[in-house]
């Protein structure tokens, strides 16, 4: 206890220097954590927008569907298949979809669209579709209407009540054609998806495509903390892989993972530079705290203080200084993380355009959790422990007589 008291008082011998060091540690935490919180929050949002809300974390298709996305590679849903998939731990919801490209038309306008047959009551369990609805209604049970994504609606200048004609190819070479009333307009929160998507009720889509009891995608919504990799392994083991393919979002959307990875490297580099700056900051302080007290350390050894106790005192000084800086940093960054988590940053016009060009929403909600600041705090703490090796070595080699001559 006395050593801690001694370390504490030693810290405040040079109040200005200690405050500067504390502030620099706190600012480093603030900058590093808020930067990473923004980046990770943005990635989470991208994944949620693209993966969680549409593609799904895991999909099951008929073997060969991903390579050649035609209805002919679709799969038959059987109760056994459903039971097997639902018995895998972590599977929260199982959503059936049929998807294909068709030509959409209204008046003089024609456009290729992605037709998805969905069961709205199932989809609603995965995503809040009500929040996406801009106009009309969301394919109520028995509805034969079509739901347009806002980009498609804009292209056709279509509104609720208008009619859209779809022409395409059905199952096993059948031709597909249908005329549908626009029942609603939705915002899919992703510019690319918004520009091509239209939705029909699953039975209506199956009827339009002459594909009764056939789906192209079995989308799996996972429980919040379920391990995606483990689920993939279990599903691959449980299912006959000569008939089915099981794919995670990383495999289905490699460009999304690469985009995140490339951007993340830049962020990590910035954090590394910050760490380097803080390392030299703390080291400078520890170096001065040790060097200017060599004489005093010599005296303490002369009167009978063991090296180990001297070393502990100086290590306590470094640790106290670092922990204080970290606590201040964490206390400052948590409210910022929380604020921008609840009120996401809206990107400026230029940046928003770039983001939307890549198919992402132009808002950046910060990631809010305790793990992120604690991880960075731990890294800085470990850095400070490494820095504390300097006084350890210095004291280990200290000759009290030479130290007392150093004044």
């Amino acid at each position, binding site marked *: 206890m006395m050593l801690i008291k001694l370390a504490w008082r030693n810290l405040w011998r040079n109040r200005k220097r200690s405050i500067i060091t504390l502030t620099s540690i706190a600012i480093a935490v603030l900058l590093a954590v808020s930067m990473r919180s923004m980046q990770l929050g943005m990635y989470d949002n991208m994944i949620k927008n693209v993966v969680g809300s549409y593609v799904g974390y895991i999909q099951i298709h008929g073997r060969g569907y991903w390579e050649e996305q035609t209805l002919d590679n679709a799969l038959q849903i059987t109760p056994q298949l459903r039971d097997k998939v639902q018995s895998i731990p972590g599977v929260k919801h199982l959503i059936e979809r049929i998807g294909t490209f068709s030509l959409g038309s209204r008046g003089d306008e024609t456009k290729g669209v992605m037709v998805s047959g969905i069961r709205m009551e199932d989809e609603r369990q995965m995503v809040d579709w009500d929040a996406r609805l801009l106009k009309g209604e969301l394919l109520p049970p028995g509805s034969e209407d079509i739901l347009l994504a806002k980009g498609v609606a804009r292209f056709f200048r279509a509104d609720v009540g208008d009619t859209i004609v779809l022409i395409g190819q059905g199952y096993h070479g059948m031709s597909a054609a249908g005329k549908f009333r626009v029942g609603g307009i939705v915002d899919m929160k992703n510019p690319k998806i918004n520009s091509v998507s239209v939705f029909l009720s699953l039975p209506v889509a199956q009827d339009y495509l002459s594909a009764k009891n056939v789906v192209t995608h079995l989308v799996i919504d996972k429980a919040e903390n379920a391990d995606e990799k483990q689920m993939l392994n279990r599903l691959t083991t449980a299912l006959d892989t000569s008939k089915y393919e099981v794919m995670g979002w990383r495999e289905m959307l490699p460009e999304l993972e690469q985009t995140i990875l490339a951007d993340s490297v830049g962020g990590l580099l910035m954090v590394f530079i910050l760490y380097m700056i803080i390392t030299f900051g703390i080291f400078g302080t520890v170096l001065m705290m040790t060097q200017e007290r060599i004489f005093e350390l010599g005296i303490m050894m002369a009167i009978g203080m*063991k090296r180990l106790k001297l070393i502990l005192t100086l290590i306590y000084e470094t640790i106290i200084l670092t922990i204080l800086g970290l606590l201040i940093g964490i206390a400052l960054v948590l409210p910022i993380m929380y604020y921008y988590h609840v009120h996401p940053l809206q990107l400026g016009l230029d940046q928003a355009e770039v983001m939307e060009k890549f198919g992402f929403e132009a808002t950046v909600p910060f990631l809010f959790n305790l793990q992120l600041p604690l991880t960075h705090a731990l890294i800085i703490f470990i850095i400070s422990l490494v820095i504390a090796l300097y006084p350890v070595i210095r004291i280990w080699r200290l000759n009290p007589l030479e130290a007392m001559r150093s004044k």
Partner: protein
Amino acid sequence: MAVITTKEITKIYRQGDIEVHALNGVSIQFEKGEFTAIVGPSGSGKTTLLNAIGGLDTPTSGSVVIDGQDITRLNSNELIDFRLNNIGFVFQAYNLIPVLTAEENVSFIMLLQGVPASKRKQRACRLLEEVGLSEQLSRRPAQLSGGQQQRVAVARALASKPKFVLADEPTANLDSKSTGNLLDIMAKLSQEEGMTFIFSTHDQRVIDRAKRIITLEDGKIISDVTV
């Protein structure tokens, strides 16, 4: 019986190609309760002798036997322990720990010895009272005068109940009044508690109060007078 015995100790420093003989075969004994001044011109070897006796410096040859133990054979960690339990130091520049109060400075040495907190406080207060600083217990060194700091240093030196106290030029930075006070305190402790005090000094006021005066020149004892 002698508390300290040095046998033919020499200390040779190298300064480039030149060898400097700081101590040149010094053999001497100190008895319990002695009040001794080691005098001599600068460079005569006073401080080197004190450092050798205090286990701060290892002689090039010879031995320093304290209470039957040859301390020249101890390693640096054993020496730290030995100094803690056997020797009290008083330095020219007081060298108190600046962030501790007077009482804490005196207690600190007992803390290193593992003395329980209540006994530490009791002894520290008693020692500070003996050196006339019972009103300054909670003051830090910077809030004390030079004379007061040196009295705290004496209390600190005595706190560990050492076998002897080594004082290197203890009055060099003090005015006459403070010097007189300090010498009175040390003489009293020497008489009442049988404590052995060994000073290295140039100060005539200290020499006048010493019971034994050892004069060094060129690393050799040239006179050893008991007053």
